[in-house]
Each structure stands twice: as C-alpha cells, then as structure tokens.
C-alpha cells in the first residue's frame, strides 16, 4: 500500500504542478489582501490565522475536492482504484499531496509577511506548520459533506468560486456571541481559524470548536471511506 500511495502522491504532485492556477486563489489573494491591510494590527495574530485559514480552506476546495470530483467524473478514479488495488491509497495520497501544498503556501505567506510587514518569530512558523496538519484534516472532513451532492464539475466550480468570495468577505469579520457559535459550526473559514486560536483561549467557543471538530472528523472519515468511485452523472 505504501508503494502505491507514494507513486500516486508523486503523480498527483506532477498534475498539480502543471496546474499552477490553484495558487492564484489560495496564496496570491491572501498576500495581496495582506498588503492592502498593512495598517491592520498584526500584533494580534487573529488576522494572520484568518489568512492561514483562507489558504487551508481554498486549497482543500480547489485542490483535494476538485481533484477527487474531476478524477471521478472523467473515469480516472475508477481506473486508478483498480490499477493500484484500493481507493483508500488514492484518497490518502491526494490528502497528503494537498497538505504538502498547503504547508508550502503557508510557509511562503509567512516569509512574505516577515520580510515586508511584520517579522514573525520562528515559533510562529513552527506553530503554523504543526497546527496546519490538524486544520487541514479538519477542513477536509467538514467539506467532505460536498461529496454527498451529485453535482457536475462545473457546478462544483461555481460553489468553489462562491466560497472564495465569501472567504474574502469573512477574512476581516469575527462574529461574537451566538453568531460566533453559528459561524464556527457552518463556516469552514471560521472553524479553521478557531482551531489556530485554541491555545490562546479555552473559552466556551474553543471547547465548542473542539467538540464540533471531533464530530466533523468522524463524519469525514465515513464519507471518505465510502466515497463512490463511479461517476455520479455519466456511465464510465
């Protein structure tokens, strides 16, 4: 299984490198917004974590999820599943490939932030690297609910674009009170931001986020374990 995971991982990385447009949304937009918001208070890490969350969620949508749906609809997922003998190897390698891309993007974002706006301590780089693994796993689990919809790739593209716009709008909004709870439960950008914030405050919202995360992880596990390899819209 490891051999096949590694081979699929390398193959997917090659495909992603050929399709560099993904970085436009997930890295370049936060970098541009960071420069636009230069006057923001970067002593407060919330805004940095919001940017990290944006990178995580948009890469999951535009990378992992788009990949799985596109592979499934064009018949490649079925081909690959029988070639390497398991769909689990494919899902795991796609996830790991996505995690690598996210880690690279967050590293680049931190380097640019440090060079041009506010130097970040090495511990922040390490913290970003470590927590991003958990945040990516959680974001993937939460968004995996979209796999239950029988939608065309074009429809998924539209949903993704809406997510990107909503994500940009929500970057500077931190709802409090009941809206904070609701937003954390249904908005992946907010939930991932809360995960980055947990060490700073063990508030009721943080505990709620942890509980929600656990629920989403279980849900994601079952959805991804039982994901169909057949095209949902045509016979392949």
């Amino acid at each position: 299984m490891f051999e096949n995971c590694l081979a699929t991982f390398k193959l997917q990385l090659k495909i992603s490198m050929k399709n560099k447009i993904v970085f436009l949304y997930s890295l370049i937009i936060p970098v541009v917004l960071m420069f636009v918001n230069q006057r923001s208070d970067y002593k407060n890490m919330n805004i940095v974590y919001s940017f990290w969350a944006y990178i995580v969620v948009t890469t999951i949508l535009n990378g992992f999820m788009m990949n799985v749906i596109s592979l499934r609809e064009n018949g490649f997922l079925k081909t690959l599943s029988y070639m390497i003998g398991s769909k689990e190897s494919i899902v795991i390698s796609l996830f790991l490939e996505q995690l690598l891309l996210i880690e690279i993007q967050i590293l680049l974002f931190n380097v640019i932030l440090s060079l041009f706006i506010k130097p970040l301590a090495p511990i922040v780089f390490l913290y970003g690297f470590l927590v991003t693994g958990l945040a990516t796993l959680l974001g993937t689990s939460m968004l995996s609910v979209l796999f239950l919809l029988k939608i065309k790739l074009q429809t998924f593209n539209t949903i993704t674009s809406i997510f990107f716009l909503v994500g940009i709008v929500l970057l500077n909004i931190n709802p409090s009170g009941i809206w904070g709870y609701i937003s954390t439960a249904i908005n992946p950008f907010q939930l991932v931001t809360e995960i980055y914030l947990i060490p700073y405050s063990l508030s009721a919202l943080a505990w709620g986020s942890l509980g929600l995360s656990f629920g989403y992880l279980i849900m994601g596990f079952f959805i991804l374990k039982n994901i169909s390899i057949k095209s949902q819209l045509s016979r392949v």
Partner: protein
Amino acid sequence: MKIENFSYSYQYKNIFSGANFYIADNEMNFILGENGVGKSTLLDCIANVDGSRTKEFIGFPKPQRIGYLSQGNNFENDLTVADILGFMKQVHDVREFKLPSVIQKFYQTRFGSLSGGERRILLVFINTILDKGLYIFDEPEAGIDGKHAVEMFSWLRGLSDIGKTLIVTTHQLDNIRDTDNVNYICNEENILVGDFVKVKNKLNF
C-alpha cells in the same frame, strides 16, 4: 467462478432476473449480448464497484486482485504517456514489460492529445501489465482499428497463456476462438453458456 440466480434492477427496470453465469478459470471468457442488456452492469458487480457484489457471486477474487478496464476509463489529460508509464513502474503488482511499438510512437505525447483509439490502446496495455488474479475488459477494442485490435487481443491472449482468468465483453466476434468460454445474454433471465462454437450454433450466428 460462477454467478447463480442473480437478479438486479436499476431505476425500476429489471436488468437480470435469476440469471446464471459461468466463468472458466485461467482462460479467456467472453460476455456477449446486444447493447443495453447489462454487460457493463454485470462487470461492475463482478469487480465489486462501490460494494455492488452480492453473495450470488461465487469464487471471484477480492477487488484488490482484479484489474478492471471499463468503457469510460481515462487518465489526466496533462500527463504524457511517459509520465503514465513511469507511474506504472512505481506501482506494486506490475509485471516486467516491454513497450509495444504502437505505444512507443506516442510515448512523449500528452494523454489529452491522443486519439480515442490511442488512449484505448494505452489503457488496455497498462491493464495487461498488472499482476492480478482476474482481468476484466469492457469492450477493449472500442475505437481501435482492426489491425491494432488484433495486436491488442494478442496481449490479452498472452495473459490467459500464463494462466490468468479474463472476462471480456466485445462486439467483434472475429477475436473469439471456438474454444473460448462464452456467456451470451439473451434477455434478463436467459443466458447461453458454453464454448463459442456451441453458442454460435444455438444462435445461428
């Protein structure tokens, strides 16, 4: 391997109703029938796509031990044939292989730039180099010219020569030998099973 008393319906339509099939081990088996009789559905069930195989399927290997090329299978368009074959070399359960001249001709071409027939030839080839217990090919010759279809069937024969079991659906009867085991789907419950020569005689081909 056999399928006993198999019933299957899809969107309120009966595809199979108490049908029986027989697959000879270590040989090339053919499943024949008119368009839309359920050949591809049957293959999906044999391959256990999305857990669709039921207890009526007896003696079939686990999905991990099955190589399955269905009709719409594809690769990512941006990958070159060299990328795809490089990937295959890293995959576990791949036998040593020599590249046929027909594939060498488009070795550096992007998958998306190949013609339909070339894509099919490549996909059939990479499925034949896998080391599996059972191989399933759904109309492997679709879109391939006669000359290359003959070459491609020689690859499939090569697998049965080394003791592998194959299940193939086809509409090109020229590639079937009289001694090959055939399951001809007449209708949802009536399946003619036997050597091709016997089936031909019964159906007056």
